């Protein structure tokens, strides 16, 4: 689910978050339950290893070398819906100022979200220190696979039909069995990654020659990112995804002022 903070910009537009301040910051977190479950697992990019604090009251402090501007934080591969409790995120613009709240997501809100990815869009703010924590009202420590913090890439257009939102983009193999006598016995499935095909409305040439080029390098190299089709109109449509199709190839349209862009992504399915 995508949650919108006060002052968040361009909330109706598609976005991608490729940046991750968690990976650049000096992180200190609650002690892990065991070796291999350290807080550094939260930077990803893998989704199969988790930061698993020993206590349900957990926290992560991050300190960046210099202040930066961010507007999005995302979490995937987690079980915050049933573990940990209320979730808080606060930031400080420098090494001295007090922390101010970005959001509080209640345990009830997290429970309603279930295991799906979480994105919180907020008004751009300067950050040098951040504090991600829970007092741990639910007495089971959570596991968090990936968290990303950064400034999202906003696509100045729309996703065009046909488009399938993340919650509906599940792919699975189905096997059914019937006996020689013609009776249905059993069916089983194997859930795989989400699969989404995105066709943007024509994107302005200035964007294609600017931010899209940086995004394209990230996408083409197969690195994962958070993707949302429209925070305002499709708040359930957010996922931790990576390239599944061909390269991102903006095709210039008549006159060269716009380009047709499409991409295919596979995504983490909780």
């Amino acid at each position, binding site marked *: 689910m995508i949650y919108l903070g006060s002052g968040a910009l361009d909330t109706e537009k598609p976005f991608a978050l490729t940046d991750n301040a968690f990976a650049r910051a000096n992180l200190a977190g609650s002690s892990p339950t065991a070796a291999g479950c350290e807080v550094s697992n939260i930077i990803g990019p893998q989704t199969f290893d988790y930061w698993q604090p020993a206590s349900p009251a957990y926290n992560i402090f991050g300190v960046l070398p210099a202040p930066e501007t961010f507007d999005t934080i995302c979490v995937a591969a987690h079980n915050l819906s049933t573990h940990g409790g209320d979730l808080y995120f606060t930031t400080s613009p420098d090494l001295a100022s007090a922390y101010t709240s970005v959001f509080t997501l209640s345990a009830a809100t997290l429970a309603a979200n279930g295991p799906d990815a979480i994105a919180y869009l907020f008004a751009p703010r300067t950050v040098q220190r951040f504090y991600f924590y829970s007092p741990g009202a639910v007495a089971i420590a959570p596991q968090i696979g990936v968290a990303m913090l950064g400034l999202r890439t906003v696509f100045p257009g729309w996703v065009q039909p046909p488009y399938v939102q993340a919650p509906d983009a599940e792919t699975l193999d189905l096997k059914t069995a019937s*006996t020689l006598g013609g009776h249905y016995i059993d069916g089983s499935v194997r859930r795989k990654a989400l699969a989404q095909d995105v066709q943007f409305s024509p994107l302005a040439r200035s964007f294609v020659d600017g931010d899209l080029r940086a995004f394209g390098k990230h996408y083409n190299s197969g690195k994962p990112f958070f993707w949302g089709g429209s925070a305002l109109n499709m708040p359930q449509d957010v996922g931790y995804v990576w390239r599944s199709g061909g390269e991102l190839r903006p095709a210039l349209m008549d006159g060269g002022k716009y380009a047709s862009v499409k991409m295919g992504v596979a995504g983490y399915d909780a």
Partner: protein
Amino acid sequence: MTREPVTLVEIDVDTCALTFGVGACTATLGGATVRKCFDTYATCAKPLAFSKVVKTLRFAESRAGLPKGAPIFPALVSVSSITSTVNISGADDNLSAFGRRATVSVEMADFAYHDRFLDPYQAERISGAAQIDEGGYDPATRGTFFAKLRARWPYYAGRALRVIQAEMVGGALVNSVTRNYIITSFSPPDDQGRVKIEASDILELASNDRALCPKPGEGYLLAAIDTAATSLTLTPAGIGAKYAASGRAVIGSEIVSFTRAGDVVTLTGRGLAGSTLASHAAGDTLQPVFYAAGMRFDDLIRIWLVDYAGVSADIVPVATWAAEITRWMPDVLAQTHICTPTGVAKLIGELAVLGLSIWWDEVAQTIGLKCNRPPFTDPVYDLTEDANLTAIETLDRDDARLTEVLFFTVQKDPTKSATDADNFRRAAYVPDLTAKGALAYGDTRTRKIFCRWLNDGNDSAALVLSSRLLKRFSSAPTQFRLRVDWQDKAIGLTDVLRVSSKTLADATGKPVQTLMQVISRSEPEPGHEIELIAQAYQFSARYGAATADTCPVFSSATETQKLTGEFACDDTTLKMPDGSAAYEAI
């Protein structure tokens, strides 16, 4: 709710409980130790201090919904497993008498990995504090998971590998079935980044190149002895400690009995068991003999597996084996000398030919043993075309049919060949005259059994065992390839099936229920479908044992008494009082 089958593979890696340079680990960086260990014996700077603990690596196919927590690496590409194949009474010449070992082949996709779970000093590799021959580096950008694992852990052979078939419900694994193996090979990543790990069942430890019985003699005669000698001295000095304090041994072709004190051996018997008294030269080997003097088969196999093959006694269900042998082979006692080191698998195979089936049950983690016998009180799985079978195919095995058994017993000289008829004194000939008849099969299919285990001349055992073999194999032992759904996953090796299919009919075309015994089991689609190879179970007649004196007559007997006892039939109708079939002797 739709089932979500999932296959996981676990590998137990030997790691160290200590921390580099702390406490019992006295390693320090410097000199030849240019980097901290990777928590394995092969990378350990102080091997004598290595304190083994097992770290389990878990792998699963890349799929959604895997449990969160300790890493489950989504690198599993495929698992191909074949359970052991039971060679019923050693009758299938295509298999060794001991059957075929269960094997599993696991294919993984290699991947870049940051090493956090594998390397306790991962952060120090990055900072540079863990090495002195170079600065810091990022392990995620150096090498791949399996390439690094194999380099750090070359001692994978014989370590545990488990295949877990389970179902996922709400992110948790339920209904899991674990199969246990030992690793036999671990190939490095190929140019496509694929890794293959192969493993075999625990009875691999008994293979002929791993386990020998008796153990090879390591002592030699210090001086020559003549035919009158009553003692000898072993060399090299101190080697006597590797021999039993008393027992039997062979020098050249002479079996002797002895007692021992230090390196001095007192010969208490010479030229035993039909061997030839002879003089022996200095330097001749004193080879211990495995002497079975009236031992039960279950005891023999347990001793071979535990004492000679190193199989854990925990996986030998002694009581179950004893009950089986007590019920079906109570009077068959081994009397023999094994004079040369012989593979344990070969020895067990020789007993299998006498009517034993031995297999590894990967799920129950026990070694199964069953005699060649009627189903008796065994549970029977009913399989029908309506409820269970998704495919059935009949495999004709006329090549395994028998019409007669020639059973050689009582070796003339146990130091000589155990497979040469000239070295046996007796040969019991047991034909099935009906099957040999010109209007029946009209041919001869002889099974020669060279048995060195009944050297006491137990002719009645030879006749009974031969008779049971013919009961089982006098008709072509048809095999069936069956496919059933995962719901029937409980069916295991040697289990008895009662199959109803239109492909199995009597002379009128009426479907008949057919008893079969599972001899092989595989999972072509893990979690979804099971393939069984079953052999027709031709012990379909009614058998029983002599009843107790207190047992009532048939018409008053309980169902249990009727099931296990043997009652006389009407001598005119040859039926039981209730019209059912008469009992037969076996």
